[in-house]
């Protein structure tokens, strides 16, 4: 709660972090084995971005930019759009077509970025 501009994605990333410790999360590192950096902007793409590294090699989720070289793919989203993509509301390719998702890096790595790598939030 340190940051005053809370992102919805924070919650999802937190869940992802926990998810990585589960068997299902460990499966991901075997299945995908890539490092993604995800830049989340609160309102406008590219502005006030907060970066997360979803390291599916080591099975880690960290805040901040990737420091051990280059991530396999880097995505930029708006907060809401990231939630939509991660929860399957929006197909990543559609997000890309709409300009809601920007991709840098390897396209083949980007194509493995699918909604099923993220755990789904349960509702109270």
């Amino acid at each position, binding site marked *: *709660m340190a940051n005053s501009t*809370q992102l*919805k994605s*924070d*919650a*999802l990333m*937190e*869940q992802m972090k*926990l*998810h990585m*410790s*589960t*068997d*299902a999360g460990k*499966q991901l590192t075997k299945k995908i084995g890539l490092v993604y950096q995800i830049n989340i902007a609160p309102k406008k793409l590219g502005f006030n971005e907060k970066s997360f590294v979803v390291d599916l090699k080591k099975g880690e989720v960290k805040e901040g930019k990737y420091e051990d070289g280059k991530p396999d793919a880097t995505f930029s989203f708006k907060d809401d759009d990231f*939630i939509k993509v991660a*929860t*399957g*509301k929006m*197909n990543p*390719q*559609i997000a*890309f*077509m*709409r*300009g*809601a998702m*920007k*991709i*840098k890096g*390897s*396209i*083949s790595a980007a*194509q493995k970025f699918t*909604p*099923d790598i993220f*755990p*789904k*939030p*349960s*509702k*109270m």
Partner: protein
Amino acid sequence: MAMRELVSGGAACAVPGTSSSSNPLGALANALIGSSSKTQERLREIPTATATTSDGNLYAGVEEPFTAALPGSEQHTLHPNAQGSEFLQGFRAVDQSMFSDAWDDIQRAQIPHYQGATGPTYFPLEKPHLQQDFEGPPQRVLSNFLHSFLHSSQGSAPFRPTSLPVLGLSEGDKQCIRDRSSIMARHLFADKSEDFIHAQVNALLSSLDIDNDIRARGPFPGRFPELEEYWNESQGMKPGPLGADGWVSEFTQHQVPRDDPSMWVQSFERQHGANGWAFEFEHEQSQLASIDQMRGSNISKLAAMEQTRMLAHTLAQNNDPKFQNSKFLQFVSKMSRGELTIEDNQFKPAAFSAPGDWATEYEQQYSGGQSWAGQFANEQAKQCPVCIYWSLNFSYIQLSHGPHGWANEFAAEREQHGLAEDEWVNEFSKLNVNDWSEEFERQVADGTFGDASADNWANAYDEYLNEQAALKQKSETSRGVYVFSDLNPYVGHPNPLKEGQELFRRGLLSEAVLALEAEVLKNPENAEGWRLLGVAHAENDDDQQAIAAMMRAQEVDPTNLEVLLALGVSHTNELEQAAALKYLYSWLRHHPKYGAIASPDQPENLYYADVARLFNDAAKLSPDDADVHIVLGVLYNLSREYDRAIESFQTALKLKPRDYSLWNKLGATQANSVQSADAILAYQQALDLKPNYVRAWANMGISYANQGMYEDSIRYYVRALAMNPKADNAWQYLRISLSCASRNDMLEACDSRNLDILQKEFPL
């Protein structure tokens, strides 16, 4: 007479008793270009250029004015015969019928006055014809009059207003004449002062009874909607609020704020090409160079361009502004204009690409041989001569200024008027292949892009289209607007609230929703109706509708604690922290027991820590109040302190063990903190108490999915959907689980929301 006939030399323009049609404006342009007597001589030697005339002659005919129009350019003139025939051969080599047909039609549309040597020619054959007879058919009068205006440029004598018979020009005609003449004047009198030019134009216009006033700057009447549409499509942008007036008026609009009378002249200049036909030659010259290329291998490029152009067209039909601005569409548009080509299955920007420099892009486009305007002309050639005229005009826009000229002019303009121009420039620079398409290019070159990718894209696009209808509704709900069901059987029910309460009690949530909707339609001020409706939606796993209903309940009854808590929970589910915090704090403030703890005024900015501290105080105050523990549990969920949240809910459950929604809250919290096995137990408790609790069924599915047990998750999702087919989240999750479980065979049933098939396949 309509302008389109005037300019295109349509049948209606034909002067009675002659075999040819006249084209006053075309004649104006040609007179302007061919105003040296030397050229007049040559022109007279040109054989009759009818539709059947050999192309070579036509070509020469067009070329002559060009050389004449640029004094001193004769030295650089290319050899017309050699080049011309080569050009035309090239033309034929590409497509025998289409291009030459188009060419013929274009020629006919443009230079009708070359036709019919026996008919009257409107060329001023000799200079002294300054004062012509202004009698006869209107178009002839107009033509002669305009010629006399042109001739005034040769002497330094100012042009004098003349009284003319009534010509019956429409507003559109007048505007066209006004704009064009102003442009021409600027070129004719390039060495004269602005005032002189204005005086000249005003003299001309006043004679024609045209107001040279501000109205001229308004949007152009949508006279050529087809073309403007095409332009918009090709630019990948929609006309927007301006409708058919398209970029022309968009541009004029940018200009309007600057109250400079020369402004619209320039803008029109851009549209029409100041030197008229002259630069067509240049266009053709630039085509010459590329004709060789166009033979053979480039045919496939053309085909690809045509394909993508069609695609761009289709895509551009879509109204979603986001989509309109999407890179993909721009990419396709770019492909369609040949700025990006595919060679050996690799994307390549057309030659000489300098990203960021749209001027060069334009250059490529034209040196690429086949501009979109040309394509358009080809297609439209037979149906619509006006279209040709305009499409050519559009290509002149770019060409007449020459790619560089245009760029320079633009750059100069941009410096002058900053922002507005920048927007325009930005529109254009959007067309750049800069970031991602280069990225693709690289990737494709690496061969990393599998064959399947094309299918993916196609599928994604299909999905996108399917999504559209649903999205409209969704975007409304997300704004907190309640969306009522169509065809509600409970409308007209004598007591829908009682019915709804009964249905809700029996667990028939979707039915209860309908009955309660009927109630709130009947009594919009019934807070209880709205509240229960909200609860039903929440239990039915639809938080958007739940929030919308609860907000209506809160409007009616701002201090209802259940409503405030429900809003806090739903906003927490939607990860909307600020809103959740606001409602939970309101809950505390309006609570009869704890209200005193909170400050009497709702602070502007709520800090989570402050709110949490207050609730902890409240919990200490009365540790046996389950509600305080519930709110605390929700608060800890908000801060993702899941262990504390679980503790709070467990405390509350000791006090309220039969609260099924509390069991679900516990389960959801456990699931979100990856204690999925525990979560499933908690959900089971909730479902034992309330078997039709859709949310709990859906949460079950989520827990199984998060554990990688996709087959199991599918059964729970299907069960939830069987009870509420409107639970969109569950459909989305079901789809993910189906593909993770390699049950792609069921995706179609999922996409078509065919529950019968799914229930049969995945019984629980």
